[in-house]
């Protein structure tokens, strides 16, 4: 990725931070593993989702963590619908 992208955290109260691909990758892998995907498949899916999100955010100087989540979820939906469901819903389980 060419330049650093600032990520505004949810609620806007915490300080912004640079986009960290590894964090997104880890969260996608966790969502895939949660629905019992094999580990290799989970990493492949996460890699593809990260690429899609990076392409989307490259043109933007500042994005929110909710934006990343939305874009990742959209990309995950095409690669792994079941994991996308869990990724989307894990905050509204309780």
């Amino acid at each position, binding site marked *: 990725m060419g330049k650093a992208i600032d990520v505004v955290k949810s609620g806007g109260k915490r300080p912004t931070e640079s986009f960290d691909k590894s964090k997104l990758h880890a969260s996608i*892998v*966790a*969502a895939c*593993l*949660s*629905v*019992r995907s094999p*580990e290799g498949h989970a990493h492949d899916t996460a890699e593809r989702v990260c690429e899609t999100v990076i392409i989307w955010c490259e043109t933007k100087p500042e994005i929110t963590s909710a934006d990343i989540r939305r874009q990742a979820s959209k990309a995950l939906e095409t690669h792994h619908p*079941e*994991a996308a*469901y*869990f990724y989307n*819903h*894990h*905050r*509204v*389980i*309780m």
Partner: protein
Amino acid sequence: MNYLETFAIIALAGMIHASFQLSVSMLTLLSGHAIGSKTSQARLSRLTGGFVAGAMIMTTLIVSFLSYVASVIFGSVVSPLAWAVACGISLGLALGVWIFYYRKERGTALWVPRPMARFLSERTKATKLSAEAFSLGVTSVIAELLFIIAPATIASFALVSLPNDLQLLGIALYVFIASLSLLGVYVMVGSGHKLSRIQRWREDNKRFLQFAAGSALAVLGFYVYVNEVVVAAVAVAGAL
């Protein structure tokens, strides 16, 4: 009340308790985080087992405590006034369940205040040991005490009318039935079912579960009111 009626009331109260979803939500989250962080199957079983054990033990303690208090205050015959109060709480909570048990948003977000839900969610995410999972199970029952109190109180009032040995059986029956939903999730997670399927089922059926829990609370409250309060009042009026 004969034994059959007493056990039927305890069983229905247990079913109502089982239909409350906070513990199930927390167990689903706990399993999701554990599986997502590549926890071994044995450790996953220990964590979920610890959670279920914690919830079951807390349920046992609550019902035993309420039964003890009821037996100290009333002996083996609970007064119609106490039954009427329990019925009032049950009918009020039935209304509460119908109106606000689930939030009006996607997913299975519950009535729990958001800061508390966030705290429980973070705690669930950070749980790595069986002992932590056990205390999380205990916490889940305490956190839902607002709704659990009605079926637990009615079951406790029913329990004190039984002989001592049958009281233990009654408590075991209540705890077993109240934990059936948790045991179901525990078995499904342990046997390799996908959490997304469990969560999707919960989401698809949440309105039905909400309606069923509220209706069952109303039915229980109404039945007990007629059986314990109206019948007692009619008997007193007849004796005059």
